[in-house]
């Protein structure tokens, strides 16, 4: 691949998020991923072209080893069916997950908190009269419970990266034990897995092995740790942060010309 770099002003924050997420997926070559709708589908396509051709894509709508030739517009798109090993329905799509056979789940969301819990259901303080209703729990809750690890993509904004999510859709490291609803470590509920990585529009965040709290691992080119602190709703640890390698011309070219030439996902 050409080693020509692109300057930060020549790509959008969303493109950066998708490209760095695709690079991160290199860790999952040969592994099984359950891919959520939206930008995770885009990053997965880019990753399979550039970094992990042997990654196995599952969808919650029942495709096994999906290999779309065109970018799907939803997880029900027949673009995901053509070229799959198997096309059944949602039960067959999700039972590998509940059997703990999925190496990683890959999702978006509207809020993430310092323990990696993700909210894709509603924003506000009353579920029954939300400030803003979102897309719902869908498979995101199931990925958080059953995947061996979770990778999340989301724009990095103060109202999104928060101390505690308004609604806990995808269980992270500290989860709710019912009926009281107090926070416990996920292991206490017998849950394996847990979030490993949050790729935002500003950097890559990981979770401390001991405290399970989010810290900044990588900062994208043109972004400072101060930018990340200013756009995070809690006092985030930036002590371990290093600079990401710059984005390659080839990564941007493939994303724009081969993956989403019609800008269906409005990344630019």
């Amino acid at each position, binding site marked *: 691949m050409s080693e020509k770099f692109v300057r930060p002003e020549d790509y959008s924050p969303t493109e950066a998020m998708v490209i760095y997420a695709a690079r991160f997926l290199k860790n999952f070559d040969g592994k099984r991923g359950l891919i959520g709708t939206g930008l995770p589908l885009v990053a997965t396509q880019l990753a399979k072209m550039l970094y992990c051709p042997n990654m196995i894509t599952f969808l919650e*709508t029942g495709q096994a080893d999906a290999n779309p030739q065109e970018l799907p517009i939803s997880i*029900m798109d027949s673009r995901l069916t053509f070229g799959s090993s198997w096309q059944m329905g949602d039960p067959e799509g999700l039972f590998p997950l509940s059997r703990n056979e999925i190496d990683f789940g890959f999702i978006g969301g509207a809020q993430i908190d310092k323990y990696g819990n993700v909210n894709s259901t509603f924003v506000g303080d009353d579920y029954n009269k939300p400030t803003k209703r979102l897309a719902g*729990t869908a498979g995101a809750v199931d990925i958080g419970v059953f995947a061996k690890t979770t990778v999340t993509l989301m724009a990095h904004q103060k109202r999104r990266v928060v101390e505690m999510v308004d609604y806990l859709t995808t269980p992270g490291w500290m989860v709710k034990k019912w009926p009281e609803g107090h926070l416990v470590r996920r292991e206490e509920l017998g849950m394996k897995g847990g979030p490993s990585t949050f790729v935002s529009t500003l950097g890559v965040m990981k979770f401390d092995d001991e405290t399970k709290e989010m810290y900044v691992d990588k900062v994208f080119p043109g972004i400072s740790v101060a930018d990340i602190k200013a756009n995070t709703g809690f006092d985030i640890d930036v002590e371990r942060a290093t600079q990401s390698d710059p984005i390659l011309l080839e990564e941007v070219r493939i994303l724009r010309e081969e993956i989403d030439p019609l800008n269906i996902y409005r990344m630019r």
Partner: protein
Amino acid sequence: MQAKTNKLVSLNEAIQTIHDGDVLFMGSFIDSRRPMAAAHEIIRQQKKRLILLAQCSLAEDILVGSGCAAAWRGCYTGMATFGLSPATLRKIESGDFFPDEIGHIDIILGAMAAMVGSPFVATRATLGSDVLNEQYSRNEYIKDLAGHPEMIPHQKFVLMEDPFFDEGVIKLQPAMPADVAIIHVQQAGEKGTARISGSLAFDHYFVHGARTVIITAEQVVPEEYLRRDPNRNQIPCTAVDMVVEVPWGAHPSQVQNFYDTDSQFIKDYVTAAKSEEMFSQWIQEWVFKVNSWDEYLGKLGAVRLQKLRSSPPFGYRPRNI
């Protein structure tokens, strides 16, 4: 149920079997193989207090916006890349429509329990999440609303310790039967045997967990034709009560091997449905001012539809055509 010789009825007749307060499952998922013609007919017949299952996406959003549905138990209120379901969001945020959140696996297990004839199944799905927050449960409200309250469990779920393998907390997920399931398929025979291509979504489960099953089909073909290769059929005639032939009956969603998504139509709807007033205009224009699905298709026009046709071998229409 006895397999009648011929289950073919008109769309109008089929939808007349739905009652106010019914629990309704609309087949498939998001933007593929959605029973849109059936949804339009439900609005035309002005059904009320329906309780929707699984999702409030393309087919359900117009029911919610039209005041046909009062509550929903499911996991998704979006339309993939087209954004969130506009009328559903508007009605939830104004407190006029009540969501009862469960997970994706919960829907499957609820349908599965109904399918296998069990009152509940056990799962670890949704542990640790706010799906288990009792304050957010609308179970009692839904039970009060239901025309057949016995269809709705006394509780949304029960947590207990795993008595068999000592694996900690597990959840008992109650069966989630439907009064009516409407499934749009590629092909059906006159006795009800149906063939689907593409994702089956939940359809192969809900047809066995619903009291009444209505199939709408792109093509009605001789039952005998489908019985030459029964392994390729996903819905047996024994599960089906009525069959309606409705070509293009899922527009603007896609039907694999028949037509692709009409993206512009969905985008225009999403824009219109954001306000109550523009939504009403949209419904007037596309539902009430056309008297049938044929008139709807006539209004769309042959040229528009022709441009959506799928191309072999893909099952969709490649974008470079």
